[in-house]
């Protein structure tokens, strides 16, 4: 399945292959792998940081538009450098050392949060041959990694030794584990349709039709549930109970200061991208251009748009929807939140999985 059939989609191994050959020319193979891993690490770090900074800017602009304001517009053209300025500001803020925290866990929490989002970020496919971690069980690995994040949040809340942070962390824990079920079941639903857990295979299976069109009703239900659960998973409004500022100061990261707080902020925005990216991957074909069966001319034109642009374009469009949620719906109460998941989304999701099985078994899909 892992082959592109006679299309002009760009193969990124045409770039990475020659670099590999060049390095192999004068280095032993272990050194080559080390250098390549370093290259990957630097690339990952840059992409991660730039994307998070872009997302902070994007969210502030979108939020401003919803509230009839201009948003950041002073630093750089259209305020584009605002988040860079913010990053430097946060770097030169004092790191306050508290005298009542569990020091080790307090320092460990940001590592866990960042590692979780970094691992998920590395799994996302950006193009043909442009994906860092390509496991056979890619999508399962992604779901598993994303659940490490909740550990970081729980540790942050617990180790701060503050009542607000503890309540925030527990709410976050209950919320994230509950909504992870929905994400897991949506993934199972779409894996049924794809017939593989390998991310490249999932994207390839959507070469002719994206799953949102192929799976029709079942895919639409799964997509809506995924979007709701993804919003809850990233602790964003209307599910921002863990950091409900009117009740809990800042929730689980109240006691963090300076760049220490910045990590949670960074990871939150990256998680937004990851949720949108996984939705793109499962429902909108990942980096696969929009194809209509039979319209060869149209498909060829679509293939000329580079795959990373397809991927990031779809992901940003979906993140816009998630940001839109935040500025549209009021915040839920904890009991409403848990009722929504356990009494509505979970039964609907189980039913939807059965529906998808029917659709596949009887061949009702496109």
């Amino acid at each position, binding site marked *: 399945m892992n082959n592109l059939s006679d299309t002009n989609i760009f193969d990124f191994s045409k770039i990475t292959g020659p670099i590999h050959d060049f390095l192999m020319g004068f280095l032993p193979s272990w050194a080559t792998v080390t250098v390549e891993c370093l290259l*990957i690490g630097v690339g990952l770090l840059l992409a*991660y940081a730039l994307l998070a900074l872009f997302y902070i800017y994007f969210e502030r602009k979108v939020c401003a538009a919803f509230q009839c304001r201009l948003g950041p517009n002073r630093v750089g053209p259209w305020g584009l450098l605002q988040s860079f300025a913010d990053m430097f500001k946060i770097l*030169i803020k004092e*790191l306050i050392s508290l005298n009542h925290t569990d020091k080790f866990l307090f320092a460990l929490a940001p590592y866990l949060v960042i590692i979780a989002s970094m691992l998920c970020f590395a799994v996302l496919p950006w193009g043909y041959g442009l994906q860092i971690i390509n*496991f056979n069980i890619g999508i399962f690995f992604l779901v598993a990694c994303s659940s490490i994040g909740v550990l970081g949040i729980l540790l942050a809340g617990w180790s701060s030794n503050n009542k607000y942070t503890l309540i925030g962390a527990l709410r976050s824990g209950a919320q994230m584990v509950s909504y992870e079920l929905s994400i897991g079941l949506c*993934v199972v639903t779409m894996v049924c349709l794809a017939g593989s857990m390998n991310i490249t295979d999932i994207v390839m299976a959507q070469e002719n039709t994206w799953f949102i069109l192929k799976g029709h009703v079942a895919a639409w239900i799964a997509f809506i549930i995924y979007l709701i659960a993804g919003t809850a998973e990233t602790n964003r409004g209307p599910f921002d109970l863990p950091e409900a500022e009117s009740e809990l*100061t800042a929730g689980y990261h109240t*006691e963090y200061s300076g760049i220490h707080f910045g990590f949670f902020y960074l990871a939150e925005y990256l998680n937004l991208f990851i949720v949108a990216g996984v939705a793109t991957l499962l429902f909108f074909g990942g980096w696969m251009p929009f194809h209509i069966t039979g319209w060869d001319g149209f498909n060829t034109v679509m293939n000329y748009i580079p795959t990373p642009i397809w991927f990031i374009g779809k992901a940003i469009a979906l993140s816009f929807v998630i940001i839109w949620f935040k500025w549209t719906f009021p915040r839920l109460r904890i009991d409403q939140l848990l009722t929504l998941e*356990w009494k509505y989304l979970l039964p609907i999701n189980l039913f939807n999985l059965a529906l998808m099985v029917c659709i596949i078994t009887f061949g009702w899909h496109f």
Partner: protein
Amino acid sequence: MISLAIFGIQNSGVLAITALLTGVALVALAMWIAGLISPRSFNPQKGEAYECGIPTRGESMSQLHVGYYLFAILFLMFDVETVFLLPWAVRMQELGTQGLISIAVFFGVLVLGLVYAWKKGALEWK
């Protein structure tokens, strides 16, 4: 698969560790830079919990509402279910009727579990 692996690195474990170390490096590097350039000032008041301005009363690391744990236990049940469903989902189209019946039994038991928890009132937030 061969052409797809980035730089032709077949061992995805190496790449996963690279990503993990990148995450560690990001935090460690930023903390180091911040430690170098950020100011330091000392005041006993700054070490206090940021709660409401007056000195904190009572222990913060105390007993918690049991409701949170209840949902964690329920989550465990359904998350393990998801793990068992995934391998079947991959081979669903080949396994056919027999696989479908077996998974339906498995599924039915879990739905019963959910119904039981629901009837018992475990899904109510008290």
